[in-house]
């Protein structure tokens, strides 16, 4: 904690960590300074910054889940999505504001795909939103390419030895989205119900898409 001492009595009795505004770090201060300079020089305005935050906030795993569910029910869409992931998502109105390309990796009985960015935190943000913290931390980034089977096992995912594991390391202009296998027993399900089975982690490739426990 900082030199500031916290002496006053708590007025209520449930335990929690002290809620304080932490001192801004180096990069946070730099970001504020650059942002204010850009605004001062009239290069970008607060409205544009807020708009970009709205763009990011509108991208969540629910979008990716809709893409996957559409691919499960519509073979024509699935083929186009695998041929060109970005164009497939654009068909559904998902724009690629960061000008990245997207490769959709289809899991099959023979191949299980896993995605990682060993250099930083490249992630299919246009279609999944912000990555989870563990995706950005060094243990996952290093171990996903060194011992993917052990990492998957820690997520509860055991891949048989006769299934090939393909780890895609995204480092430049391409982002990846895993198309999980459609769970058995979902024949005739609506696209909306199918989308509910598709989690963020399934689209990163650390878990399969599964039926909810109540249905199993």
């Amino acid at each position: 904690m900082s030199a500031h001492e916290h002496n006053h009595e708590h007025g209520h009795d449930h335990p929690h960590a002290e809620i304080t505004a932490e001192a801004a770090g180096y990069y946070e201060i730099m970001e504020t300074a650059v942002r204010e300079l850009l605004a001062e020089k009239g290069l970008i305005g607060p409205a544009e910054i807020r708009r970009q935050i709205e763009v990011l906030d509108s991208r969540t795993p629910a979008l990716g889940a809709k893409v996957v569910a559409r691919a499960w029910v519509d073979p024509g869409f699935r083929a186009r999505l695998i041929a060109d992931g970005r164009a497939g998502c654009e068909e559904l109105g998902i724009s690629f504001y960061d000008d990245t390309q997207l490769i959709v990796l289809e899991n099959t009985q023979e191949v299980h795909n896993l995605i990682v960015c060993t250099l930083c935190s490249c992630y299919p943000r246009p279609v999944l939103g912000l990555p989870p913290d563990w995706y950005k931390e060094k243990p996952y980034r290093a171990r996903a390419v060194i011992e993917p089977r052990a990492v998957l096992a820690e997520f509860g995912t055991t891949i048989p030895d006769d299934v090939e594991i393909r780890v895609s390391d995204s480092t430049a202009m391409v982002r990846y989205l895993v198309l999980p296998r459609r769970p058995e027993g979902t024949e005739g399900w609506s696209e909306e119900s199918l989308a509910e089975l598709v989690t963020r982690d399934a689209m990163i490739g650390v878990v399969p898409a599964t039926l909810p426990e109540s249905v199993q």
Partner: protein
Amino acid sequence: MSATSTAGRLQGVVWALDEAPAFAPGDPVRILTRTPIGHYRVPTYLRGKSGTVEAVIEPAGLDNEQEGFGRNAGSKRHYYRIAIPLTEIWPDYVGSPRDGLRIEVFETWLERV
């Protein structure tokens, strides 16, 4: 239009050397061993490793390493999806020998084996 598809292309049009991909799917390649200072996009664990071109990534893109320094003009070339067995990267890899890594690598980082 894609630089790799030739169907329907008019004859007699000559492409600049860096417009057409230098490598094709199936080509055996090696990732160069270089140690650039500053911004780089080829992780060190893959330098000097051999693999196979799985796909040419379209469209041609900027060299992200140059872009990192604001140098964008004239650096467009192709990225390639390279397949490398995990046993090539880690000699003591534990798992199926068919397990593999895929990564996109800019043209200037690849040499023909």
